[in-house]
Structure formats: C-alpha cells, structure tokens
C-alpha cells in the first residue's frame, strides 16, 4: 500500500488526514526543481549556441546532447533533493513557488528555441 493510502479508506468522506496535513512544501519542491532542471538545460543549450561552453559528449553516438541533458538532469535531481529537504515541512509561499516554476519553464523554453540562438 502506498504511503498516502495508509490513512485512506473508501468510506472516508473527505480528504484523509495524512493528505490534509501534509504541507505543500513537497509539491513546491518538486515543481520548482523541475523548473530549475529545465532552466539548467536551457542555459547549457544557450551557452552551446553561443560557443561559450559545450558540455562534453558522454555518448559518442549522441554527441554533445548527452552531456547537456545529463548535466541538466543532475541539476534537477540535486535541486529537488535540496529543496525537498528544506521545504518539506513548509506550507506557505505557494503562490511564489508557482510563479517561479512558471517563470523558469518559460525561460527554459525560450532558451531552447533555435530562433533565439541567432541573437547570441
């Protein structure tokens, strides 16, 4: 049985205690970390496009994309672990976390848009 189901029964009329009392910090950490991982990829892509830094090819066939994406995934997982640890008991700041996630995702999408690379 999953942890969040431990206090849940089909007869429970409302959201069960474990879910109700779990602070939103875990969710904020997951969402913001996904944004950080996305932006990390965007920054690496931009640096590569600008010939400022190219992540090493970790897979000969795939080339530089293997390094860029691996580094971004590491940034994502590390930031997720750090934020999870720091925010897991936190329940305030939802709106800020939501806005930061949105901003990070938008910036990362802009950074991975090839049309913008010509600016650099």
């Amino acid at each position, binding site marked *: 049985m999953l942890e*969040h189901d431990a206090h849940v029964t089909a007869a429970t009329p409302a*959201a069960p205690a474990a*879910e109700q009392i*779990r602070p939103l910090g875990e969710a904020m950490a*997951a969402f913001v970390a996904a944004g950080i991982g996305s932006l990390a990829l965007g920054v690496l892509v931009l640096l590569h496009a600008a010939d400022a830094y190219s992540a090493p090819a970790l897979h000969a066939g795939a080339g530089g994309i*293997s390094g860029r994406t691996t580094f971004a995934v590491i940034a994502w997982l590390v930031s997720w672990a750090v934020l999870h640890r720091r925010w897991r008991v936190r329940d305030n700041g939802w709106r800020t976390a939501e806005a930061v*996630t949105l901003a990070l995702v938008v910036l990362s999408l802009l950074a991975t848009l*090839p049309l913008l690379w010509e600016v650099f």
Partner: protein
Amino acid sequence: MLFSERSIWTMLHGIGFGGGAMLALIAVLAAVYLLGREATHVPSVREARFVTQLTSLAASLIWLTTLVGTYAVFPLYRAAPPEGVTDLAAYPRTLILSAPETAWLHSFAMESKEHVPWIAAMLVTAVAHVSWRYGRKVIVDSRLRRASVALLAVAFLLVSYVSLLGVFVNKVAPVE
C-alpha cells in the same frame, strides 16, 4: 525483412512511446478535469490512485521516448557519411542539410526535438511525484490541481509540438 532495425527503433520512439505518452497525458488531463469539476465531489481512493497511475505511466512513456530518441534514434540520424558516398538516404542529417529548402528541418526542428522533450519529462515526473504523495488532495485542493493541470498541459503541448516536428523530419529523411 519488412522493417529494418533502424525503422523499428524509430517507430518505437515516435509511435509506441511518443504516441503512448500523448494518449496518457490527455487521459490524465481529462481524468483530473472530470474528477475536479464539482467542488462538492470528493474522489474515491480508487479514482485518485487511477490518476496517480496514469500520471506515472505518462512520465515513464515520456522518459522512454526521450531516452530512446536521444541514445538510439538520434545517433542514427546524425551519423556522418563516409568519404565519397553520394546516396545520402542512410544519413538523414546530411541529407536534410544538403538542400537549402530542407535545412530548417535540422536547424529548427531537430534542434528543438533534441532538448524540449527533456523539459516535458521533468515536468510530468514532478506531477507524478506530487500525485503519488498527495493522493486525493491533488484533485480536491485547487492550488495543487491548478499547478498540476498547468504543467501537464504544457507537457502535452510540448510533446505534441516535437511529435509534429518529428513527422516533418521523418517525411523528408526517414531513419530506416
């Protein structure tokens, strides 16, 4: 043989995993919408678990699409032809770049396809984790529901967008 190994990898990437990810994402979005549209309705444990499983399936399929695309299909696409080869059919990137009217398929379409799916994979994984940890609260709590739906919708649009670009690339220079 009806399909070459290269073709099978491409179909697995685009149709199997990619198509499956799009279906799973639209199913999650529909499920969350239908379960959360009435403020008075509290979803059952089974319904919440179904949403969690669907979201996890979508995340898994996006990761499989992305990893197979990056490490199995992309190397076939970007392989450089040996010196003196004139038939470029087996070298999609070189074939695309050899004509000015198709060069955008590499400089825009493939460059986008290389990176955007990783963003979608991270976003959907975050939602799957939240759905697993919060259960019914993802549907009942408007803040969690709104953020989850927004990220899933963004991921769906991104996956659809790169899938369309993949169709364009594969039309001109299929990996087969």
